[in-house]
């Protein structure tokens, strides 16, 4: 079972998880996940994110460290630095920040 933060939920603080996390609502603070993180369209995340894989369809403001990969989907918006072995940016995504793929 994964953690799902629904559209109408707001979390301010620190989230630590060893399982998949799906964000459809709002998260401010820090998100440390040993597993995949999905930021859905409409979600707002203002946090530094650590994950195995990260998929961004919503708005993410903060630095990202992913042990495997980061996918920035069409309609997604990412402002912050990305450190990941693999990064894809879909056509129509917004991205501002530095990329480090040497990890």
């Amino acid at each position, binding site marked *: *079972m*994964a*953690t*799902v*933060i*629904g*559209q*109408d*939920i*707001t*979390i*301010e*603080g*620190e*989230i*630590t*998880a*060893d*399982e*998949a*996390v*799906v964000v*459809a*609502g709002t998260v401010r*603070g820090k998100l440390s996940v040993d597993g*995949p993180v*999905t930021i*859905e*369209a*409409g979600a707002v995340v203002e946090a530094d994110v650590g994950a195995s894989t990260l*998929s961004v*369809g919503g708005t993410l403001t903060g630095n990202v460290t992913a042990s495997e990969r980061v*996918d920035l*989907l069409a309609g997604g918006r990412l402002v912050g630095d990305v450190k990941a072995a693999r990064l894809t940016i879909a056509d129509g995504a917004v991205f501002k920040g530095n990329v480090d793929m040497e990890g």
Partner: protein
Amino acid sequence: MASHSSSSNGASVIGRATVIRGTIRGDGDLQVEGRVEGVLDVSGELTLEDSARVRIEDGALSAGRVAIRGAVSGNVRGTSSIVLEQGARVVGDLSAPTIGIRPGGLLRGHVATGDSPVSQALTRGRVERTPARTGRTAAVAAPAPTPAPARGRSARAEVPAARASSSGSAYASPAITQRTAAEEPEAAPAPAPTRGRGSRETAREAAPPPVMPALRKGARGQMKRKNGK
């Protein structure tokens, strides 16, 4: 990618391998299987599963309907109801219009049913006792024109009673929960505020629940000493 677009329709879950320190607010339902430390305030239905560990640091856990099967440290307020299911372990005060405690649910704290000022005050802090005290002083002050010694006497007389009842109850929490569960259906229409007007016996009967959480470290010894002289 697989989970993308699968679950954005409002059902929120804090999984069992997840820890959240901070504030969780929202309008929807929330199911907690993991750990939450901080503030938890949702307007929908809140379900704390048996693996849930919740520590409320400020004020009260608040939700529309609350169903508890896990562990909670802190006050719990339900704007519509609270149910302690089997396996629930709650240290804190409960307040809601209707409260249910099923066999196997453990509670250490105040219970206030009904939408009374008492139950509202409970969630804000340690108010309590005001209705009981006014009831007692009114009963004593009417025949005796010297209220100061009378109040002192009544306060002292209450200590052994409180001690007897609380020492019995503090170590037999299943008995309490069962009794509350048995009383719960009739108790639904807010007994708390009416107690103040009742006789001294009802005030004394009402004593155990408010007194119980006051039994902090060293309180028993203090009462024993007071009782001894």
